[in-house]
């Protein structure tokens, strides 16, 4: 009975997990297919081996009809030479299953290098600045006494309740008045501080034993020294978690960069990809390739820092 239950458990979890990651698998496999294969019916999961020859300056896929000793006979499968029968030397026929060149084609069909740079630059500046401003503010709220402390903290928390769309329009107007629309300033400056990060760090700083602070004070440490030499080294985990969250949120954000940028050269990866999707129509293989290389950096980071991620989320949910 217990054994049966276990098998059932793993069956349910296994099937569900596969459903969860199926879109990723389908994305990668489609990105390696030929256009014809990508819309084949019935759909094919694993691309099949295909034969290619050079013909009139372009590479054409051929269906092999006859395999002679030295020469092979085949028919061109698609394109303007479709149906043409060719007899070619055996060594001129190239066999390929996975079309890795789809990636190169996709990369070249839009300025993805620039999109990557814009996203990376925005995410790094936002993350570093947010960690700095949040650590300072969190330290003040956790370890210093000052007038209006509680009122200020309540005001901060109240801003968490306000939906983002309320401040979207005024922020756009403010940026427009500053003349910052379509600049890196618009992408980064409004996000250089975050209430959530301050709150998250303050929780952590408060858990640091009081004795350490008294000792630092006796040793004559200034607050700046206490923060940089005691608090920060003790809080690397919260810095990593907050940093990862900020980075991901910035990297994945779509609405903000969509609104505050107009010119193609200012597009972030998410905006660029969305435009690419809407403009390149039905070129599924290249669309999937572009999606794959856009997702790759974050997925790699996720696998490297998986434990921190999950623990970070767990602790964010346990607050209150």
């Amino acid at each position, binding site marked *: 009975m217990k054994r049966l239950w276990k098998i059932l458990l793993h069956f349910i979890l296994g099937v569900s997990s596969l459903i969860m990651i199926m879109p990723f698998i389908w994305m990668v496999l*489609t990105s390696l297919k030929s256009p014809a294969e990508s819309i084949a019916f019935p759909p094919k999961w694993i691309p099949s081996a295909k034969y290619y020859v050079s013909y009139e300056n372009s590479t054409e896929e051929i269906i092999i009809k006859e395999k002679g000793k030295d020469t092979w006979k085949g028919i061109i499968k698609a394109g303007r030479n479709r149906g043409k029968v060719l007899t070619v030397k055996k060594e001129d026929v190239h066999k390929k299953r996975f079309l890795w060149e789809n990636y190169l084609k996709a990369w070249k069909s839009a300025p993805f290098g620039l999109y990557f740079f814009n996203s990376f630059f925005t995410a790094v500046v936002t993350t570093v600045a947010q960690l700095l401003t949040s650590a300072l503010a969190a330290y003040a709220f956790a370890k210093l006494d*000052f007038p209006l402390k509680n009122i200020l903290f309540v005001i901060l928390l109240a*801003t968490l309740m306000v939906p983002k769309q309320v401040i979207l329009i005024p922020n756009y107007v403010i940026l427009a008045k500053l003349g910052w629309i379509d600049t890196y300033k618009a992408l980064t400056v409004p996000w250089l501080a975050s209430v959530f990060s301050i709150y998250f760090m303050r929780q952590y700083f408060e858990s640091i034993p009081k004795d350490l602070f008294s000792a630092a004070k006796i040793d004559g440490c*200034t607050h700046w020294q206490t923060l940089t030499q005691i608090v920060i080294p003790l809080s690397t985990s919260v810095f990593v978690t907050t940093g990862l969250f900020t980075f991901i949120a910035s990297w994945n954000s779509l609405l903000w960069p969509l609104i505050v940028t107009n010119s193609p050269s200012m597009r972030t990866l998410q905006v660029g990809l969305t435009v690419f999707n809407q403009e390149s129509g039905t070129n599924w293989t290249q669309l999937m390739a572009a999606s794959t290389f856009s997702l790759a950096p974050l997925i790699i980071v*996720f696998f490297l820092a998986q434990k921190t991620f999950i623990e970070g989320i767990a602790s964010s*949910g346990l607050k209150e």
Partner: protein
Amino acid sequence: MRTFQRGRQRIHKDFLSDAETAFLFLVPAFLIIFIFQIFPMFYALKLSFFRWDMITPKHFVGFKNYLNLFSEKEFWQSLGNTFYYVIVSIPFGLGLSLFFAILLQKGIRMLSFYRTSFFLPYITSMAAIAIVWLWIFNPNKYGLLNYALNFFHIEPQKWLQSPILAMPAVIVVLIWKNLGFNIIIFLTRLENINSSFYESAEIDGANKWQQFWKITFPLLTPTTAFLLTMSTIFAFQVFASIYVLTPSGGPKNATTTIIFYLYKNAYQQFRMGYASAIAYVTFFIILIISLIQKKLLKTNYEE
């Protein structure tokens, strides 16, 4: 500034008082938060009483934006769509995540593989993965879902291009995306439930089903409440997923939610005052729902 001097340590008192240090430490964060979060809240309120296209001067209209809003058919439709989305996606999303969290208890084999699979969509950018979902929901017979239905001899469906099926399709994608987050939160709480509760329940002869309803479920209430509030706020703000799956707001506006309606008005038609009024109405709806949820869950928990 001497306070910021590192290295040699000084025995005498800090150059700045606590309050002065706090002030310096808070300035950078508060400057940004004030300009880009607190001030805009009031500015949006002001804008909601004006007619403004960002080019011609602002024109005070009193409550006209709000009145127009309530008489606009598309507003009610987008509000209806939002509620449809909230009412369907949240119970399904939370129910499924609780179900999987219970199955994923500590000590089972391959836990980390399962956990990773469930969590991966959460960190995935919607703009990138949307293309796969567009394929899955492709209205042609080679669309993956239509292909699967073919086995059951069901006709190909139009999915995202059908006024009836577009919203359910969007809901499926969003549940898929957020499931992992909810599972992790539930899982953490489940792991912290004292095992002695279950041990004494076993002794009293309670079966697993009774244990779930009498122990696990009540103890999870604060977590469920947290997730419910978070999911509701999140659901009202959902934009990216809808924008990438149905860029025009769906067939017959079927997937135009309230924030999508706001986006259209503000950034396609430049009705800034009107859009600000939408924002404030949404804000109040979220506020009221959060308060109701808080009240309901509290009374339930105390009983």
